[in-house]
């Protein structure tokens, strides 16, 4: 299987792979920023006093978590045109990824906020700190310390999930492997190279996650 592994073809396709690697990077980065924003908003709604807001956020979070990303992706990919919304594929892809990871970020942020003992906030009020100071010096450092690792874990999931975008024919890493398979009948070279590029991203994020676990700024909570 590996004795006739063709490095020349990989070299030939390297420009395509690098281009697709960058595409995976920015598709993931864009979705990540969007997902964290959606997560913060959904979490704020979930924790709000208003029952309507809280329930809406609950329905959103539960329905995202109980259905596969691929079904959500097809839902928007095939569904948006019938609503008369015509957007490029990558917009649909980033939109679906953002909504999907947003629900998970909402839960991660909620766990972080609810993990802070209420006495801490009361102590902050009693020490005469205003809202901004309490956020800056008491709540956020602790919440960040507790959520940084699950947040990075979800970022890893998001990068991997972006591979599903290849199924709605967006050019990214997995699509490059598919192209090598269909153009040259070389699935081994194609998909192992794809996997190698994903592993680079995985180890980078994992190392960062380990490092952040050791850093004092994130450790203030513990």
């Amino acid at each position: 299987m590996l004795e006739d592994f063709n490095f020349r073809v990989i070299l030939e396709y390297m420009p395509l792979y690098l281009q697709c690697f960058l595409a995976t990077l920015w598709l993931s980065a864009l979705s990540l920023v969007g997902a964290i924003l959606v997560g913060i908003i959904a979490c704020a709604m979930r924790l709000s006093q208003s029952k309507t807001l809280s329930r809406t956020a609950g329905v959103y979070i539960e329905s995202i978590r109980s259905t596969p990303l691929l079904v959500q992706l097809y839902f928007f990919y095939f569904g948006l045109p019938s609503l008369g919304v015509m957007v490029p594929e990558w917009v649909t892809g980033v939109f679906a990824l953002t909504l999907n990871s947003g629900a998970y970020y909402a839960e991660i942020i909620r766990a972080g906020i609810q993990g802070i003992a209420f006495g801490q906030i009361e102590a902050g009020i009693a020490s005469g700190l205003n809202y901004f100071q309490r956020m800056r010096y008491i709540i956020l450092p602790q919440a960040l310390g507790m959520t940084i690792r699950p947040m990075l874990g979800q970022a890893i999931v998001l990068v991997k999930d972006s591979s599903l975008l290849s199924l709605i024919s967006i050019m990214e890493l997995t699509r490059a492997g598919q192209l090598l398979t269909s153009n040259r009948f070389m699935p081994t070279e194609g998909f192992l190279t794809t996997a190698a590029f994903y592993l680079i991203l995985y180890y980078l994020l994992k190392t960062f996650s380990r490092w952040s676990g050791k850093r004092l700024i994130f450790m203030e909570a513990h």
Partner: protein
Amino acid sequence: MWSFYFNELMRSLPFFLKGLWMTVAVAGLSLIAATIIGFILGIVRASKNKILRSIIGAWVDLIRGTPFLVQVFIVFFILPSAGIELEAFPAAVIALSNMGASFICEIVASGILAVPQGQREAATASGLSSFQQLRFIVLPQAMRSIIPPLVGQYVLIIKDSSVVSAIGVVDVTRVGWLTVQRIPEGLMVFGLVGILYFAICYPLINLSNYMERRMTVTATRL
């Protein structure tokens, strides 16, 4: 037009149920295999054998670091060039149980390592063999921290089984994809697919949350 498509969709409902059955078959088989293999690997991973531990650790990293879609393609397209011809269904089950096993392995290993060392020492002092220790002392206690994330992992396996539709397994996602070519109402078709997944996953997620709450309560009571 909308009600015409709706009636059409209702008429192809048996097709969807067939797809759902395929999803249950793929996910169910993989779930059983993943649990068995995952427990064995997890027990070895928590053991003292350094070489086996790091081999399993490296494998788990490879699986965690690459998208499931790429793993499915590797099993389906690359194993044949090693002389192992696979139909789509067994390829899907192999890929899914391999992925599930490597995640369950980590859950089991961390559950075992969470059991206090003194328990093992007491068991050794009582003259139990290492198998008896595992069977009667360590695993029953570890189960408390293993079961809630294990059920959560089952939900992930069921959701990830949607990805095997990419190699032509006619599961419920694939049925949706085939139907939407005929009934061009993406929101309706994939709404139905989503509801079917929701009906399976939502109760499981709640079960996992419920067990997590119950098991932490008993733990603090002890």
